[in-house]
């Protein structure tokens, strides 16, 4: 556990930056091997991100969920645990928000607030379940997360089909307009890009995360358990309670993603054959961002815009957008094994020295 912590906390920014460069470079090599023009591809990616007001707004829209999933994964990492159940917590968050947004009528603003609370809480409880299973029955969180992801997915389908089915489509009915959290004037300014209050809350969440982890007793407990849970126990901390609380918070952050996607972006829930995968992207964000608030913001901005820009690559340069997914996984590959970059650096240093001497 303590090694896990060290892996995520102590590494220098240099390794993250080199990972990004290597990822993009290898992506370019793959494109050349496939007979594509990587320069044109990256150029059309950038054009897609910064091309016009709408695209810039939509790129921002794509970054918001990654900030939350990055935080959700990071808080569990800090406690020395893996939350790969963020995907399921997102589903439960969406479901909670959708049920309140669709089935209950309330005045505007209050409706939205109640829907946000419902989604966030449901996600949190779904996460806490992982913590309970871990502490009470010793079930490895990785395995319970996987099971709960699929359970959440099918549970949501069941509820949607039973209460909110939109006949003839594979999605739910829409939420009532009073529960929407889209910022209409800002969306209007950005040619209809789906900007919502979740963006503001993401900034709040980043700051809150920073203070919670570094300035409060509860954050200290999480870090202590992550560093050495035996020592934490010896120091009188209730480790089980810290674990469950961490998963509850992590699940809440995941639940918020689902909530905002429903209330701010899509207004409905799709009946999809698999979960969104945003939770797994959160692992990438937390890892590259080294579990810090600022790092997570930057990593989410990078990955979010890369993913959004990928659409432009297939459109502008005819390159399959999957290349970007490859680039992202290569970046995490290097970021996860910092020893590799150090080894490469040593190698080049040594060969330079050899050149000088020889």
């Amino acid at each position, binding site marked *: 556990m303590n090694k896990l912590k060290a892996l995520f906390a102590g590494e220098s920014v240099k390794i993250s930056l080199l990972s990004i460069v290597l990822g993009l470079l290898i992506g370019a090599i*793959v494109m050349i091997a496939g007979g594509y023009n990587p320069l044109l591809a990256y150029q059309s990616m950038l054009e897609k991100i910064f091309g016009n007001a709408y695209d810039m707004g939509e790129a921002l829209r794509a970054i918001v969920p990654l900030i939350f999933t990055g935080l959700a994964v990071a808080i569990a990492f800090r406690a020395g645990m893996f939350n790969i159940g963020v995907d399921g917590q997102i589903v439960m968050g969406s479901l909670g928000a959708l049920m309140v947004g669709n089935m209950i009528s309330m005045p505007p603003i209050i409706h939205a607030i109640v829907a946000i609370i419902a989604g966030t809480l449901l996600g949190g409880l779904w996460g806490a379940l992982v913590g309970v299973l871990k502490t009470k*029955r010793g079930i490895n969180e990785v395995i319970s997360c*996987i099971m709960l992801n699929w359970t959440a997915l099918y549970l949501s389908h069941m509820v949607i089909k039973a209460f909110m089915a939109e006949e003839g489509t594979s999605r739910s009915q829409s939420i009532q307009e009073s529960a929407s959290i889209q910022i209409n004037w800002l969306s209007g300014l950005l040619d209809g890009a789906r900007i919502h209050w979740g963006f503001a809350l993401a900034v709040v969440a980043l700051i809150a995360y920073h203070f919670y982890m570094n300035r409060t007793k509860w954050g200290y407990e999480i870090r202590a358990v992550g560093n050495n849970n035996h020592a934490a126990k010896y120091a009188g901390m209730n480790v089980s309670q810290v674990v469950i609380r961490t998963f509850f918070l992590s699940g809440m952050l995941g639940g918020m993603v689902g909530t905002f996607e429903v209330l701010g972006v899509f207004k409905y829930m799709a009946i999809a*054959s698999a979960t969104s995968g945003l939770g797994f992207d959160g692992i990438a964000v937390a890892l590259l961002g080294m579990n810090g608030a600022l790092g997570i913001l930057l990593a989410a901005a990078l990955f979010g815009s890369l993913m959004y820009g990928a659409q432009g690559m297939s459109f502008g340069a005819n390159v399959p957008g*999957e290349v970007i997914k490859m680039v992202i996984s290569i970046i995490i*590959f290097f970021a996860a094994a910092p020893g590799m970059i150090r080894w490469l650096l040593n190698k080049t240093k040594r060969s330079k020295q050899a050149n000088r001497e020889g």
Partner: protein
Amino acid sequence: MEILGFLINGTLVFATALIFAALGGLIAERSGVINLGLEGFMVSGAFSSAVTAYYAEQAGLGAAAPWLGCLAALVFTVIFSGIHVIASVRFKANQVISGIVVNMLAASSTFFMVKLLFDGAADTPVITNVFHRIHIPWLSDIPFLGKALFQTYPTTYIAFILVIIVYYVMFKTPLGLRMRAVGEHPGAADTAGVNVNRLRAWSVMVGGSIAALGGATIALTANSSFAFNTISGQGYIALAAVIFGRWHPVGAMGAALFFGFAQALKDQVQLYEFARAIPTEVFYMLPYVLTLIALIFTVGKGSSPAALGQPYEPGKR
């Protein structure tokens, strides 16, 4: 009785891929390396076998095509298991993350290659020369049992034979003893003269190729093609089978059969009037919920390999 026969037969068919993948995962995990990359190995196996079988078929190799596909799956997947080895064994990266990287990389790169090879198509063309059910002479004529057990794909039989082989190697040979030692107490194994990291590397790669056969099974029996959603989570279920089966080949086989049964049940039960009132999702959910419940009642501490997830650093106790 006839329904029961179909149910057993369906269970075997669905369980086959999971047995391969679970055995592959088990070999790596017994040597101390967490294998979340099973999903990626299965994707890689499904992709390489489908593409190879397709081109073999085009070249007129006919019935040999699916077998060549399986061979390709074994070889091709070394790329991805090699990545897992480099990151988690050589450079001591976190093994869970390394596995997730493998999954992401396998999913994106195979989909990229399918688009590249087949002019932007999202899946490979349908392959006609796939594995077909074989009727074992005489045995398949036995009423009930014949239909249940002896009319199925060759891959299914291979999977069950492999369970016996893995069991034998792991528990009855010196190699197996070393493997388990490396997973339980690498320091002691090192003292006894075992090259810990080399053995772990081999375990991950052999396991990866076996898991790839699971992917190939899906592509070359049920699907007859490869698309991005051919595997869709089966690798994770196989990992659950490893844990549920307590890191024992026979246990993992039992867990795989259990998942296979849940899937077969879903298909069979929908034929009945009384079952239509139950939402389909209940049957989809069943394997996952049942696994959780089973884990709640069975998991005790100390059933996993003691050194699972810990990179080996000589000189450190």
